[in-house]
């Protein structure tokens, strides 16, 4: 029986947005039924472009937003039955922007020790300091930086502080929301190496949200592709990257520009407009941009099909 560190069952998040003065309110389905299962110790890469709902899912999992419907299990327990502080002990975030994820008015040591102090887990200043020193060493930060302020640190150092803050309570799951997108390439490599290292050292499970497929291919064990609030393809990293089945996944992979001077630019037939989530297309929401669409695609929404460990939501998938 596989133990799941994190599991969602058909979670949905809908917003009521005003569609103009005379049109009343419309339903925005940011997350439209997502079921994820992340086995303990694995890294699930959640990929998708802006507007697909991946940030909304992150907020719901962290308890920062309420879900409209569906169930969420963290560490085997239903979060509906858990207090907010309990959830915080099991799952912690690392955000994208190293500049806005640290309070500019607090010293590094105060920032890192915040979770312990907020939860009342500290046994005195001495104990706090030891724990801060300990975690700073684990993430590769010189302890002398403890008394500095965020504006004195580089982007990579700040991101390490964010990771240290996330790990000080030794959570089971770390939710990384584009943790390296705002960093330079050389720093990104440092942080990714560190994340991989920490996973084995501290027995962590990652939910790794990113739009950078090269990074996801490198770090993730499992991958889920999101489009307009739904998962359109899910499987192990190797399987998905070598044999993509959904046309959107194929387009995403073709868009990755590897450093190869012999190749020119890929010709991606996707059309130039991303659909508006307030007015999603009928049937399969991807059909207006799909090069392989047929009659059925604009009328009937496809059901997810699972075969040999892979999930695809398409009427005419390849390699499936």
């Amino acid at each position: 029986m596989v133990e799941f560190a994190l599991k969602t069952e058909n979670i949905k998040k809908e917003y009521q947005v005003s569609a103009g003065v005379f049109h009343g309110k419309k339903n925005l389905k940011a997350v439209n039924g997502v079921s994820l299962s992340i086995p303990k110790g694995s890294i699930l890469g959640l990929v998708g472009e802006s507007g697909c709902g991946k940030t909304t899912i992150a907020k719901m999992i962290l308890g920062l937003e309420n879900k409209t419907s569906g169930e969420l299990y963290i560490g085997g327990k239903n979060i509906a039955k858990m207090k907010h502080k309990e959830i915080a002990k099991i799952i912690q975030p690392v955000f994208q922007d190293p500049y806005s994820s640290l309070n500019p008015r607090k010293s590094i040591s105060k920032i890192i020790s915040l979770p312990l102090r907020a939860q009342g887990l500290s046994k005195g200043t001495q104990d706090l300091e030891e724990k801060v020193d300990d975690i700073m060493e684990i993430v590769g930060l010189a302890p002398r930086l403890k008394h500095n302020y965020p504006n004195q640190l580089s982007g990579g150092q700040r991101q390490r502080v964010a990771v240290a803050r996330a790990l000080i309570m030794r959570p089971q799951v770390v939710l990384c929301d584009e943790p390296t997108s705002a960093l330079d390439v050389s720093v990104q490599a440092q942080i990714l190496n560190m994340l991989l290292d920490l996973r084995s050292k501290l027995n962590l499970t990652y939910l790794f949200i990113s739009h950078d497929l090269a990074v996801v291919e490198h770090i993730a064990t499992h991958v889920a592709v999101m489009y307009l609030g739904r998962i359109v393809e899910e499987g192990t990293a190797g399987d998905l990257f070598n044999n993509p089945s959904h046309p959107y996944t194929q387009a995403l992979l073709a868009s990755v520009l590897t450093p190869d001077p012999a190749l020119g630019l890929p010709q991606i037939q996707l059309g130039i407009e991303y659909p508006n989530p307030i007015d999603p297309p009928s049937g399969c929401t991807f059909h207006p941009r799909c090069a392989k669409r047929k009659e059925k695609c604009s009328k009937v929404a496809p059901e997810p099909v699972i075969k040999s460990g892979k999930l695809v939501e398409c009427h005419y998938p390849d390699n499936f």
Partner: protein
Amino acid sequence: MTPTQQQQFNSGLGMDVVFPTPGQIMRRRVMTHKGFIIGGVMVLMVFMVAIFAPYLSSHDPYHQNLSNRMVPPVWSEAGSWDHPLGTDSMGRDYLSRLVYGSRVSILIGFSCMSIAAVIGISLGLTAGYFGGKADYIVSFIITVRLALPAVLVAIAVVALIGGSMHVVIMVLGCLIWDRFAVILRATTQQIRSMDYVQAARAAGCSIPWLMIREIMPNLFNSIVIVATLEIGRAILLEAALSFLGMGVQPPTPSWGLMISEGKDLMLFDPYLVTIPGVALFFLVLGMNLFGDGLRDVTSPEGRS
């Protein structure tokens, strides 16, 4: 490499640049800002006058001497150093009244500002953090307050329950919180969307903790700037009320009252009006310069 070799190796690289802490940055800016220093000195001077009032005044400001009425200040022919700023229509020493009047202005300025700050910050913080219905309600309250003319409301209240220092402080404090609320609401909304607030919430911070220990320190700049402006506003409002007879009651020396008492004789003995007028102008100008300087000095650095 040995440490000295290492140091030699690293020289000429720009490695030894140390970025200052936020506190150091502010200190450096404070030292070079003219408006801040000038305004600060002006306010400090009035403060000193208020504190050392008994030593600076040669007479009792309440002591009337009807045989010594309307003595002009020392710079006109009939004046003397006995009463450097002359006497008023009751024979009271003007310098002493001016000096003690500074206490009234400062006391009222700071007390009103404090009450307004408590009300305004609570409302602004609540509206900015919670948004939605709370924001709707608070915005409505602010709009109502902005639609009321502060002076008229103050007059009406005083007319109902009578004027005194305490009444003036309470009434004005409950009327001038609007700028606090508006500015803090906007700033809180900005900060609310920052990732560090989300991270603190995800770490298990309770909402009071978030608001007071994570968000408030970042509001400090805005609060101090608005506070200095509101002190000036409160002082002028009190002067206006006292001028109309609706504020501090005689014989308390208030600069506004002094102007009011001298207004009938303004054309003949203008010093009765100009001296307290200049004092008011001096204090409020100083506070405003100081407030502007504060705003410049504490403006966000952005990313270095």
